[in-house]
């Protein structure tokens, strides 16, 4: 398959970013340094090209009812101009993706989901649409661009300072640097900030309008270290179709009361009978870094696997997430990680490693 390029591809190359392939897209992993970019977002503001994220428009009569069938939290309950994080599950409760639903207008919704398995997810959604003949599903990913402007200074940038009334998870049409965009007060960094969706053709001047104000270009590396510090999960790593939302500690994204969504029966059972393992956060006692796939031990026995691990630049320690048996999933529990054939000490801590002040 041809590697996809975002409308900002040339900008990334011109800035001499280190480029990698991610979920079928050519994207910058860093421009100058992951650490510098990470710190820029925590202390000032950074800008990420997140145009690889899927943008799917769902509209027409019963669009809300259709999404309520597909996702774990009812979209119809959203007010126009608000959004929510939720999950798309299989019948067995396994997680197909985590995603944002924006209610744009009465029966007009926008879904933002992960770049991975884009076509399979679209096929899945379309295959469930038979009972909803008037609903239209349109993939607008390639016609649009998406920028994440994140950090404490984001709200002070030109044209963004007029959005201070926009609540967290709120979104609105706005004019930024003269371009018509949809702006949402959302992000994947643990900081205040915005995600901006524009026409593909406007992406370059829009990006430059931010970088000219001193906003630091940031790559996927900082995006990953920032989201991990903030305790946010990465689909495909910290959860996938083999994990259910309760195991992934995402029960708060599942509404078992109101609607009848795909996977509800399985999740009701999981909720009733309990889970055997759970995603937890851990902190390394020393300087070794636990990487994805490393084994977690307790009392000499292998009990689970690391799903994410990194140096945490803001905290100056090494952190990670992984699955452990439910009976061990308590903050303060001592564990060991097998690193280079040696057991290295770590302890369970809250997944919200970093909390902004």
């Amino acid at each position: 398959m041809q590697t996809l390029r975002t409308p900002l591809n040339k900008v990334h190359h011109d800035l001499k970013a280190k480029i990698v392939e991610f979920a079928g897209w050519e994207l910058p992993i860093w421009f100058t340094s992951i650490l510098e970019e990470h710190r820029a977002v925590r202390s000032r503001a950074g800008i990420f090209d997140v145009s690889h994220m899927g943008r799917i428009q769902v509209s027409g009569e019963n669009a809300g009812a259709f999404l309520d069938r597909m996702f774990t939290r009812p979209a119809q309950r959203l007010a126009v101009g608000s959004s929510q994080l939720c999950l798309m599950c299989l019948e067995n409760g396994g997680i197909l993706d985590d995603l944002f639903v924006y209610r744009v207008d009465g029966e007009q919704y926008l879904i933002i989901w992960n770049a991975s398995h884009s076509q399979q997810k679209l096929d899945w959604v379309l295959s469930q649409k038979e009972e909803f003949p008037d609903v239209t599903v349109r993939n607008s990913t390639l016609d649009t661009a998406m920028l994440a402007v994140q950090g404490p200074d984001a709200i002070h940038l030109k044209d963004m300072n007029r959005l201070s009334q926009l609540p967290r998870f709120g979104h609105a049409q706005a004019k930024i640097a003269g371009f018509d965009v949809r702006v949402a007060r959302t992000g994947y960094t643990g900081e205040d900030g915005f995600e901006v969706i524009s026409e593909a053709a406007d992406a370059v001047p829009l990006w430059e309008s931010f970088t000219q104000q001193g906003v630091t270009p940031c790559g996927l590396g900082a995006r990953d270290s920032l989201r991990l510090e903030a305790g946010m999960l990465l689909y495909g790593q910290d959860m996938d179709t083999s994990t259910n939302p309760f195991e992934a500690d995402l029960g708060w994204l599942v509404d078992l009361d109101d609607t009848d969504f795909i996977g509800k029966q399985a999740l009701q059972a999981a909720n009733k009978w309990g889970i055997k393992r759970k995603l937890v956060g851990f902190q390394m006692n020393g300087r070794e870094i636990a990487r994805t796939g490393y084994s977690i031990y307790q009392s000499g026995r292998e009990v689970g696997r690391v799903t994410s691990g990194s140096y945490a630049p803001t905290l100056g320690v090494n952190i990670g997430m992984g699955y452990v048996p439910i009976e061990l999933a308590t903050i303060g529990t001592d564990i060991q990680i097998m690193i280079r054939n040696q057991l290295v000490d770590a302890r369970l801590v809250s997944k919200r490693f970093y909390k902004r002040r």
Partner: protein
Amino acid sequence: MNPKECRYTKEHEWIRPETGGFGKVGITNYAQSQLGDIVFLALPNVGTRVEQFQKMGEIESVKAVSDLFTPVSGQILEINQAAANKPELVNQDPYGAGWLVRLKLSNLAELDKLMPSAEYDQFEAKLTEDSSH
């Protein structure tokens, strides 16, 4: 530019031979630029015997972990404690303050299996060119 007095491996390590059959080893500027911010060095213990081109340690950057290979056989005499404590020295000064280990070579003829600087310059240029297409 890569220092003329060093010899290089295809895995992007350098060795700077000293009189008496000693040498300091590090990673090249190209290697550090590819790894990005280095945050931890897993270096062999002093006294360890190592075999040419075998793994002798690991280098952790924020993003990933990479193997460190030894350019020659020999015995580890010293590790760079300053770099172990402050791994960003490897990013900042890969041929100087960011050296990794010093060893006693067991077979000087092994140096002939390594690339001189001019050859490594070309090797690096080719890699840089390939990755920009």
